[in-house]
């Protein structure tokens, strides 16, 4: 059943037409202006509404329940009307408000509305309706505050009003908890701050939220850290302990096998060879293992310094290499040979290439 509204202009034209058709009201042919349908609606349906709503107190005898009457009075389009304190004595029909009235109502919610002209009126009506649905102005202010302050251009000037209103609210009414965030916040806040006052929500809302949020990541982080580093015997000031990384095989002369002494002799010669061309060896090493840390050169330097005088070290070092040594040497020699070849193929710049024929002959002789 349709609810018969006092002010059908809030419905769309289509809805009006369908409502009229549902009640067997003859529609004019063609597309008419909305006002036509509104008039028809008013004439036919609202009149019926009035007729049947006359014995208002006698709820049982009515064809249609008085709920539509209330809804028509209180809110156009609201499906369920609760006869609770939501129904306020003042006018709630937004469409019947004047421009100034609309602006005042919006101001109660802390919405600094702009000029209410023809093009903006409908929007502000909708906005007010939404605000009315959310509840009385005092409770809504908390909701709208984060939203309104989000609009930097609109919300900043109204922050002063909020604190006043909220004091009344928390005294007068029990706080609803519209958002899950405040609910979560309270146990958090109680942990951190002693005065868990619900009054201080307006201005300090954000600050408390931030502080509450700050606390929450700290505690999980500490747990995670403890899990990651259960070794608490070190107790370094930063809590960070560094363990020596396993030396890489094949790096800086370390052999692949665990025992150093097995491959000592051949290893030494290889090392000497590598150390002779130290720069290129470091090049190959870096190529083979890019992710080596600083530990490697630190290990490499003392080792190479020990090995250069050809004294066999007795240190047993684990070596691990990506590429075998012979392969690295092969690559090295190939690169060196290539460079040498290129160098050989180059021409000298000593003489003017564009100049005399004698020099060109000399140039030709230098190639290959």
């Amino acid at each position, binding site marked *: 059943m349709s609810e018969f509204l006092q002010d059908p202009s809030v419905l769309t034209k289509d809805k009006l037409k369908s409502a009229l058709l549902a009640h067997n009201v003859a529609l004019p042919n063609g597309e008419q202006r909305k006002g036509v349908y509104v008039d028809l609606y008013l004439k036919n349906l609202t009149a019926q509404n009035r007729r049947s709503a006359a014995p208002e107190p006698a709820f049982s005898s009515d064809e249609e329940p008085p709920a539509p009457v209330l809804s028509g009075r209180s809110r156009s389009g609201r499906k369920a009307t609760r006869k609770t304190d939501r129904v306020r004595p003042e006018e709630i029909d937004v469409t019947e408000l004047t421009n100034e009235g609309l602006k005042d109502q919006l101001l109660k919610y802390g919405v*600094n509305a*702009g*000029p209410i*002209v023809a*093009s*903006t009126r*409908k*929007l*502000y009506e*909708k*906005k007010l309706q939404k605000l009315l649905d959310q509840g009385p102005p005092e409770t809504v202010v908390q909701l709208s505050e984060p*939203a309104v302050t989000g*609009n930097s*251009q*609109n919300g900043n000037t109204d922050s002063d009003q909020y604190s006043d209103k909220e004091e009344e609210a928390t005294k007068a009414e029990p706080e609803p908890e519209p958002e899950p965030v405040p609910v979560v916040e309270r146990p958090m806040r109680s942990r951190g701050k002693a005065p868990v006052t619900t009054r201080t929500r307006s201005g300090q809302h954000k600050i408390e939220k931030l502080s509450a949020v700050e606390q929450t990541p700290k505690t999980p982080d500490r747990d995670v850290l403890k899990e990651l580093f259960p070794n608490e015997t070190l107790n370094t000031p930063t809590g960070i302990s560094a363990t020596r990384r396993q030396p890489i095989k094949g790096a800086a002369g370390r052999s692949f096998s665990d025992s150093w002494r097995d491959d000592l002799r051949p290893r030494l010669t290889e090392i000497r060879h590598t150390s002779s061309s130290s720069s290129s060896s470091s090049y190959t090493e870096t190529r083979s293992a890019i992710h080596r840390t600083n530990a490697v050169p630190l290990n490499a330097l003392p080792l190479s310094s020990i090995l250069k005088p050809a004294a066999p070290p007795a240190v047993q070092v684990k070596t691990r290499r990506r590429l075998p040594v012979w392969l690295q040497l092969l690559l090295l020699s190939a690169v060196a040979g290539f460079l040498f070849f290129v160098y050989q193929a180059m021409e000298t710049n000593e003489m003017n290439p564009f100049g005399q024929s004698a020099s060109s002959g000399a140039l030709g002789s230098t190639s290959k």
Partner: protein
Amino acid sequence: MSSTSQKHKEFVAEPMGEKSVMALAGIGEVLGKRLEEKGFDKAYVVLGQFLVLKKDEELFRDWLKDTCGANVKQQGDCYGCLREWCDSFL
């Protein structure tokens, strides 16, 4: 860089003058036609509406949706475009 379209960049780069409403970001042919039917035939008229709504995002989005049926993305594009234009030229 933000993900603004070419249309947005072009619109924001210079005063809108007499540009058509379809020059706005988010407003294409269909939406532009609808706006024009409602009387918003130039970009500055839409700008006027934007300003009358005090550059409020929510209200402007609602208005766009009601007037030409723009979806959320289109609303956002148009709002962003106008806001940035205002920041530069207003």
